[in-house]
């Protein structure tokens, strides 16, 4: 059945990450139903292949059996029986040929479908990989943004503190907090790249 895109309501484009991820999702959404159709077609083609292959094996057995029987006879000894066997051999040979060609034809189709499926699978895998990469770097970017905001909120003009608040401890704590944030930001930067 049709695959419904997972998030019908796209998030507002707050950053271009979302746009890129949306594009990746759209591409994957287009490929997935195609892959499903290919998988189903392959299943049916394989059924057909198995049946024709079974026919090929059955006739192959008959052909080798009759070849053995023929080898034990010589045309001069039992002309009538030999001709009967010869006739049967021809039939078996023809049937074997027929099933060989059928098997090969179906196998060709199977191979083509499989090749296309593999192509799509590779492409889907690549899409998923870059999706994961983008998602994680978007997260990092958001965290960085948050940290910057917090740092801005915490930073206070130096002279403002001394006015009504003679509190040396607070100033020290704020400085520590700012330092910690800068450190964390640096860490994120290192990890993100």
């Amino acid at each position, binding site marked *: *059945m*049709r695959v419904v895109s997972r998030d019908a309501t796209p998030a507002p484009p707050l950053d271009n990450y979302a746009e890129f991820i949306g594009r990746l999702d759209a591409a994957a959404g287009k490929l997935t*139903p*195609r892959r499903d*159709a*290919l998988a*189903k*077609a*392959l*299943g*049916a*083609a394989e*059924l*057909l292949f198995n*049946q*024709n292959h*079974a*026919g090929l094996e*059955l*006739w192959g057995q*008959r052909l080798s*059996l*009759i070849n053995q*029987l023929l080898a*034990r*006879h010589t045309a001069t*000894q*039992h002309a009538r*029986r030999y001709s*009967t*066997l010869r006739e*049967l051999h021809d*039939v*078996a040979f023809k*049937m074997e040929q027929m099933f060989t060609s*059928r098997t090969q*034809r*179906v196998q*060709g*189709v199977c191979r083509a*479908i499989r090749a296309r499926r593999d192509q799509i699978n590779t492409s889907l895998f690549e899409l998923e990989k870059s999706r994961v990469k983008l998602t994680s770097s978007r997260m990092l970017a958001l965290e960085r943004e948050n940290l910057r905001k917090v740092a801005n909120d915490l930073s206070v003009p130096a002279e403002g503190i001394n006015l009504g608040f003679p509190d040396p401890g607070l100033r020290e704590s704020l400085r520590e907090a700012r330092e910690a944030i800068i450190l964390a930001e640096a860490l994120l930067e290192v990890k993100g790249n």
Partner: protein
Amino acid sequence: MPTPRTETREICSFTSKDWTGRPADGAGAMFGGFSVIGFVACLVLMTFTPGLRDVGATMLFVALFASTFTFLGILGKNSSERAFLQRLTGTVNEVVLELTADRTNQLSPDELRSLLVEGGSLPLLVNGVSGLHLMVIPQPSPKPKQYAKPKTEVVTTTRIVIAATPPDYGINSFDRLLETATTDPGFNSAAS
């Protein structure tokens, strides 16, 4: 000797809730329901419009109300069923195209509808090899759970499948011929 056995691969399945092919089904019940609603609406309207306080006017109002809404309901169901059939045809066609690699083999929604309604099968040639058929298998859905109300309408599931029927290998006839040839009196002595 393997017994000839038809194997199938499912392309897609749907229930009678999704598609029945008969959008007018249940029109009677719908009409009844809308009649009741129409009657209630009429009673409410009576408090404002004295003109409706009359048996004839009430009946006319209810009839019109129910007919209109039933008509609209069937129309809506019809279009949703058509859209569903369209999507179903797309899915089926995609698989058929992969197998036959032949654009002329594509089904139209009407053809699929007749296949769904009348059954039957459609032969598919895979690179010139016969043996596959597009088929529709209707089946009653698995027994509803015990706690479900038994009175509810039975939901049937329809499966669209590709069936593979083994060809007649002709092995049996051949073996019989071979047997007659080899059991000829004097065969074994000659063979030795």
